[in-house]
């Protein structure tokens, strides 16, 4: 309420005018792109669609549905990683830049475990068992990494200015990336093939969905439900929410703040580990750089959904995944941009800027303590 008052009394500077113009231009571009897309879908030979994109052919319904499903599945993985960013930001008020590396270590450990299982023949003979095993291993590795990270790099910095832990986490991220490069080498490593019965396409509600994506969605939904139960229904979750609200008062109420913060990191790490396995099984390749882009996009997802808001993070992930998958073909191509598939990452970053320009607190609202909102 105070913020609104301050806004209205601030005199309008050229920066505000520039931002208003930027907002209008962005909306205009999106609207024109969408209209052109609709025009080309109705009849790809009309003047409006041909104006910017002379080669417009339109997309078939199956293509659009395919892009949508891909986007949602990808977004579910972003959402799983975003939970870690969101929880840590909620509790400690800083961006754990190295969270993408926690995710990458989950993928990497899953790769090692699954190739070993595949060599032993267990992967083919009992896929469910080995799937559960690699998820367990990935969760263990990611959780351990996140906890060690907190202990070594972030705990000593808990009371320092807010940019200091962020810079530290950039260093941690850089270190882990290059340590993995040194340990496992620069080559891209591929996961073993998924069994045929899982990977084949299935039709659900007229959507033709590859089995891998169904698996991603199911596992993400189950983990999200588990997380929701932990945070909302257990004592630990209550403690976490209390610490996020106010550390000092939580400590006065007899909550062990250090332990709760470690738990937050651990749970975030576990979610990233699950996301890592899903990522590995969907894209079947992993390198030491795997964590970088998904990490930043997951942070974007957390901001889109509203930092500190767990349901929002998941929804933000799905929204970002869909935007990134549909955006290039639906908005950029009708605007006459060539080679749109190269611009997927640029679209994701632009989405971050757009959201922060229009709704800095995210689509579903932030849940931060008084101090962190500053």
């Amino acid at each position, binding site marked *: 309420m105070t913020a609104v008052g301050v806004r209205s009394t601030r005199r309008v500077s050229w920066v505000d005018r520039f931002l208003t113009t930027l907002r209008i231009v962005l909306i205009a571009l999106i609207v024109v792109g969408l209209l052109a897309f609709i025009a080309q879908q109705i009849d790809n030979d009309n003047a409006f669609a041909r104006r910017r994109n002379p080669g417009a052919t339109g997309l078939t319904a199956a293509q659009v549905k395919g892009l949508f499903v891909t986007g949602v599945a990808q977004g579910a993985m972003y959402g799983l990683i975003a939970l870690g960013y969101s929880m840590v930001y909620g509790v400690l008020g800083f961006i754990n830049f190295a969270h993408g590396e926690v995710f990458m270590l989950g993928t990497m450990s899953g790769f090692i475990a699954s190739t070993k299982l595949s060599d032993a023949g267990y992967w083919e003979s009992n896929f469910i068992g080995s799937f559960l095993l690699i998820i367990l291993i990935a969760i263990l590795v990611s959780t351990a990494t996140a906890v060690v990270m907190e202990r070594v*790099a972030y705990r000593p910095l808990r009371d320092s200015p807010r940019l200091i832990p962020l810079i*530290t986490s950039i260093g941690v991220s850089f270190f882990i990336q290059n340590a993995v490069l*040194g340990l496992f080498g620069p080559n891209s490593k591929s996961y073993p093939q998924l069994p045929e019965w899982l990977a084949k396409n299935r039709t659900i509600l007229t959507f033709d969905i590859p089995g891998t994506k169904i698996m991603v969605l199911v596992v993400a939904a189950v983990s999200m439900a588990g997380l929701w139960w932990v945070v909302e229904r257990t004592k630990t979750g209550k403690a976490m929410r209390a610490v996020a609200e106010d550390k000092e008062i939580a400590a006065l109420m007899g909550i062990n703040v250090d332990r709760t913060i470690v738990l937050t990191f651990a749970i975030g790490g576990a979610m990233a580990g699950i996301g890592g396995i899903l990522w590995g099984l969907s894209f079947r390749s992993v390198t030491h750089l795997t964590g970088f882009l998904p990490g930043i996009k997951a942070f974007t997802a957390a901001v889109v959904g509203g930092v500190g808001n767990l349901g929002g993070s998941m929804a933000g992930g799905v929204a970002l995944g869909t935007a990134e998958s549909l955006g290039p073909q639906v908005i950029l191509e009708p605007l006459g941009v060539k080679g749109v598939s190269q611009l997927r990452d640029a679209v994701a970053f632009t989405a971050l800027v757009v959201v922060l320009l229009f709704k800095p607190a995210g689509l579903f609202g932030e849940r931060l303590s008084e101090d962190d909102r500053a």
Partner: protein
Amino acid sequence: MNELAPPRQILDQDWRRILQFGSLCALTLVFIALIGMPVQLDTRILIRRHLSLGYLSLIWIPMIMGYLVSKELVLEGIISAKKGPRDLLAGALTGMIGGAGLSLLAVLINNFDLRDPLLNWSPQTLEQLNFGNGIGFGIGIWLLIGGALGIFGSALHVLPALTAKAVGVALMTVALVSILETAITDLLEGFRLTFITDSLYAKRGGLSVVSTIVLVVFVALVTVLAAGQGDALRVKYDALDAPRRKSANLTMSFAGVIALLLLPLFLGKIMNELLANVGLFVLLALGLNIVVGLAGILDLGYVAFFAVGGYTTAVLTSPNSPWISPELHFGIVILIVIVIAAMIGLAVGAPVIRMRGDYLAIVTLGFGEIIRLLFLSDWLSPYFGGAQGITNIPPVDLGFAEVKGSDPRSVFYLVLFFCAIAIYISWRLQGSRLGRAWMAIREDEKVAEAMGINTVNAKLMAFVVGAILASFSGAVFAAKVGSIFPSSFLILVSIIILVVVIVGGMGNITGVIVGAVVLIGVLGGPKQPGLLQELGTFKLLIYGALLVFMMLKRPEGLVPNARRSHELHQEEFLQDAWLKGIVDDDDEEVTA
């Protein structure tokens, strides 16, 4: 000097602490062995036949751990015990636990095969650990080496202060002289003093044993003899009155500038190339120093402005530019570069400037990536050449000389010119109204705003000045390399510049220059090799570790800015004041 209690009993040890430091030592050693440092760096010889960079990467750890384990906090009012054999034992045990880690690794490599995921689980690593003498020798020797180095490390506390200092300085000198071999050889060759290099270094690289011993003895002697001279000099300097001190400062900086101008004439091509690279990064770091160090805005997409400078120069000078190729002169181009960089700085800055500091960091990172992806895309390739980039950028024609990549000396002078401009700008801005506004914003934005500072404009100005300095660097980079590709502008570059600024000392011009010279000169830039070019991929690992270490242990950097370190250590300063009894009630409220 405090009074010391008599040394403690030899078995009166803090066993937990020893175990902690020992396991840390062992873990670090095994990690370094497994990422392959010892094997890959073994080709670089430091002391002929006795020490390679590969082994050095291992042996410094037990030494440091031995030093740390017997180091004690000196507390006011508590009499600490005199150091003695007890501490040597602690050091020895710590080192031995560390050595045992490597012995265990050797045994494991000998008996199990984990080569599949772990790249360096190899016979070469085993042989390196065994010194080529079989597994039994390897196990024993690492226990011995670890113990010996641990004792050595802790002995630095036991020895009399002057001796310890002499030993320390001598070791540092040997390390420096062997690491800087290329630079020293090149420099001495320029002065026609090759007889020194010939006697110092062995024929195929590395110090010879004799010269190492001579060097150690010589440096130790000099340290002992010159003890106290440095302090005396400082006291004398401090005693000077203001005008005298000013003239002394002037003389020193004048001498420094002359030396810097003459230096390249005596250096070979490789060293000049290195100097030019260092200069480019000094320029970038000075720019980022204004943004991060003075205004406190963490801009992770700083490389975007470097790219803008490079691409503008390429488009406007190269005959191969796919879009317009006016083939302008570099002097005019620089003016256009300033305008464009300032505009991009404003355009990127305006949307992000009101965001929270940490959001701003990620969004600028996003902008950095967006700009690179746009340069790379097929969409804009008719303008900027896409992945093929823009080639055939002509050398800079100065009338009396040509600055081109094949003549790194000329590039160095050009970079030096721009660095001089950048230093002047940073120096003048620091004390100006704008500079003080930046520092106020860095310390507390709300208070600064309440004091009547237009924070938005001030922060945007920081963005713009930083952008212009980075674009200078980009323009020179384009002219130096002669061609420009999107792959030169990875986020990596931003992060390395950030490490340079932080290690050097945020907000301090000298610090930033020192940081760039030490880090880029020795370790190398993202693609440019430094003096230790064998490091290759390990340098990024070192950059990451350095960043974390500096943030944890010395956030104000190597050459700190006084005000900045006050900000970072406010509580400690207040504590000191309290101990000395000079605190008043107002200050206590600040801590609460």
